[in-house]
């Protein structure tokens, strides 16, 4: 029991330390530069009494590291540390901050003269600060089933009265219609083919013009139409799958595996190859894909992909934030399929992903994410503890 408690305590301590923003930055070089600025300002290093106080959000451990580095650098630059009564110079250092930066100040007192050195460096975006954008994610349950759901789409592109919802399963497509704010089941149309056997079956269903749509399963392309009833025809095909409902970017699916092989298709993308990936979030000037090695990468034009620091789940999607028209990267957590999951939205700031919302929690794993045709929402397929599958519409909204 004691061992267990110790392990938990250590785990919590590690968690708290890892969350300290100071540890995500290298404060050592900053302390070196600050010490050099102090030495530059003083005519000659002299016996000095040095005091340091922390007025910022830096942790005591970070402050301790900065103090040690400052002392080391000042001594290396010729300063001799003394007690107050033996010192010729007194340096009072304050580690302060404003909204955006750390501001470190040094008051150098030499007799009656006073001199000041101020040094600033950007503060890392804190979780509190980043969630201050007042954006949150909302979910709307579209459909639930005891058999695995693979994907869902809105035939008209939006959920208005009379709209049609199509839900893809391994062997059928289900049709729903929105009536009085409820999705009413209308019809189940089998695909008319042998069920595809795969350990991690994936599929995609996207709207086309009019009332038609396309459905993709490994090695299979189905076209369908919703008229008085739902009809669908399937054939063997290795056609690329649309990555989102707007069909701007398509990718070839590795039929015997559970990922896209990295060959892209679409306007301006012919011949484009990236690493094999599970899913892709497409933005106006970049894309983020979840590589089969479990890490996400940022791809901008023909540049070499940049590894993103975060370790997310396999499902990613990009949507537009209705609050401010910014682009949001929706991610899932990198946990097992047996674990609860959550969707979190991030802002991409250069190569950094900054959390834009709190996580939207689900009791089971998020199996699929796909951007809607209007880029404002995403479809999520989620497993539940009870073995059921649910399809959700995910959107960003203003306010908590």
């Amino acid at each position, binding site marked *: *029991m004691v061992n*267990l*408690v110790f392990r*938990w*305590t250590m785990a*919590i301590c590690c968690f708290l330390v890892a969350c300290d923003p100071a540890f995500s930055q290298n404060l050592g070089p900053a302390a070196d530069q600050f010490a050099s600025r102090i030495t530059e300002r003083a005519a000659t290093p002299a016996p000095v009494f040095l005091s340091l106080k922390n*007025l910022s959000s830096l942790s005591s451990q970070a402050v301790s590291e900065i103090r040690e580095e400052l002392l080391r650098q000042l001594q290396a630059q010729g300063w001799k540390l003394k007690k107050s009564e033996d010192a010729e110079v007194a340096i009072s250092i*304050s580690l*302060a*901050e*404003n*909204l*955006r*930066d*750390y*501001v470190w*100040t040094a*008051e150098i007192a030499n007799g009656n003269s006073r001199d*000041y*050195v*101020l*040094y*600033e460096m950007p503060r890392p*975006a*804190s979780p*509190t*600060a*980043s969630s*201050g*954008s*007042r954006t*949150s994610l909302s979910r709307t349950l579209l459909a639930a089933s005891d058999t695995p759901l693979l994907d869902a789409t809105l035939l008209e592109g939006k959920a208005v009265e009379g709209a049609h919802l199509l839900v893809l399963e391994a062997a059928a497509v289900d049709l729903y219609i929105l009536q009085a704010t409820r999705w009413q089941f209308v019809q189940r149309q089998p695909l008319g083919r042998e069920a595809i056997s795969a350990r991690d079956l994936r599929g995609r269903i996207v709207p086309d013009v009019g009332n038609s749509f396309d459905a993709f399963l490994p090695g299979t392309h189905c076209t369908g139409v919703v008229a008085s009833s739902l009809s669908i025809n399937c054939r063997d095909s290795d056609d690329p799958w649309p990555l989102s409902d707007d069909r701007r970017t398509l990718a070839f699916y590795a039929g015997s595996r559970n990922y896209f092989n990295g060959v892209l298709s679409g306007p301006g993308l012919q011949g484009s190859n990236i690493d094999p990936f599970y899913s892709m979030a497409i933005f106006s000037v970049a894309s983020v894909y979840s590589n089969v090695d479990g890490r996400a990468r940022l791809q901008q034009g023909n540049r070499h992909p940049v590894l993103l620091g975060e370790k997310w789940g396999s499902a990613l999607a990009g949507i537009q934030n*209705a*609050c*401010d*028209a*910014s682009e949001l990267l929706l991610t899932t957590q990198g946990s097992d399929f047996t674990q609860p999951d959550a969707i979190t939205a991030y802002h991409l700031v250069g190569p950094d992903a900054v959390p834009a919302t*709190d*996580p939207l*929690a689900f009791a089971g794993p998020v199996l699929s994410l796909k951007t809607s045709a209007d880029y404002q929402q995403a479809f999520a397929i989620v497993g539940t503890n009870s073995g059921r599958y649910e399809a959700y519409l995910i959107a960003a909204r*203003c*306010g*908590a």
Partner: protein
Amino acid sequence: MKPISLLLVAALNFFCLASARAATRPRYGGTLQMEARGVLTSLDTQSSDSYADRQALRDRVVSAVCDRLVTLDNAGNPHASLASAWRSEREARSWYFTLLSGVLLHSGSVLAPQLVVTALSGANPNWHIRMQDGEMLIQSDLAVTNMLAQLAQTRNAVCIRGDSGQWIGTGPFFMADFQPGKSIQLRAFNDCWRGRPFLDRIDIEMGKSLSEQASDVELGRTNVVEADPTQPKVQSTAVVSASAPDELLALVFSTSRPAAQDEKLREAIAKSIDRSAIFQVLLRRQGEPSASLLPEWISGYAHLFNGAQDLAAARQLHAELTSTAPLSLAYDASDAIAKLIAERIAVNAREAGIILQTYGEVLAARAPNADLKLVRIRIDSPDPALALARVGEILTLPSLQKIANGQSIENLYLAEREALKDYTIIPIAHLSEAFSLVPNLHDWSISSWGSLRFDDLWIEAAP
């Protein structure tokens, strides 16, 4: 289970609960009743008002009616608004903005890019603004590294004058009625590009003292009032919400008056002030005592300004004076806190041998005929350079008005120290803007610098 494991479970439960929260979908409808000390007698978009309450009211109404190209979140990060994208070139001397298209004005017409150009050109005569290849181009002879923070200021809201002088914008509310000096009525703009706000209407009553406001919220006559941070909550169920300290309380000498021209006298008064007692007793530890123009959360260097009382030095300086004539100290007659602080400053000065005669005057109406006055200045930007320039503009300090953006924090500190060195301005404290809200008002938020988001607010109907 051993006590330590119980503690551990409790700690883990706390972490789990802290990350979970219930969410309620906002409801549409209702009227927000609000009261304010500030009084607007005309609709101008003046940005350098030395009367903090009036400036705060003007900023809030403008923000509800007129949009800006970008806004700042609580961390000071820019977010798209009327501009959906931007980039800078020529080392921040050229800025290109992609404007949203199809945005409707309250008048029903579409916001034309040229209207944005005209509005921003009027507010920024040093910028050269034009449309170029579908983008709005802002050029400046100097680098404008804090362009986004500038565009997020209320003075850069895109407001158009209506026939009757009212503000017309693209914001979530339109001006339905304006009774100069009395009331403002805002109504929901159904066709707002960001979506209709949840509230139907906002009614603002102007010129209400803090005591009147406290009484009205207690009697259920209003939903939101400005709170006196030095007093207990007016209603046991009311919620109090406050900004970071964003109002500068300072003594300002009229150096044109002979009695205020002696620097030693000004320094003696500065050294006699017991900021600690003012903070702890009169302000009930709200805000922060300060000897600097900018609060610590904006500058990060306010702690370098020594505000400790030094009566011995003050007496010594007074002993060296040739004249010991009494000085007059004016404060805002409608500001109960200002009266208390002015009287305390007079007591402190008397301990140093200096006679200050205090009197209340309506500072919003006219400049006082006093040797020095106690002023409150609202700082509306978290950007240190912009904040300092604004204070310089209001206090007519040319050295601060000319502060170029992109200055290092050390240069800003040096500029502020230079501005304060002759003691014509003596900062006393920084105060927060506080509000008391009825509990059925939801999604209220106030930024560190006091801006409110009316479009997020919603009212839960009484059961």
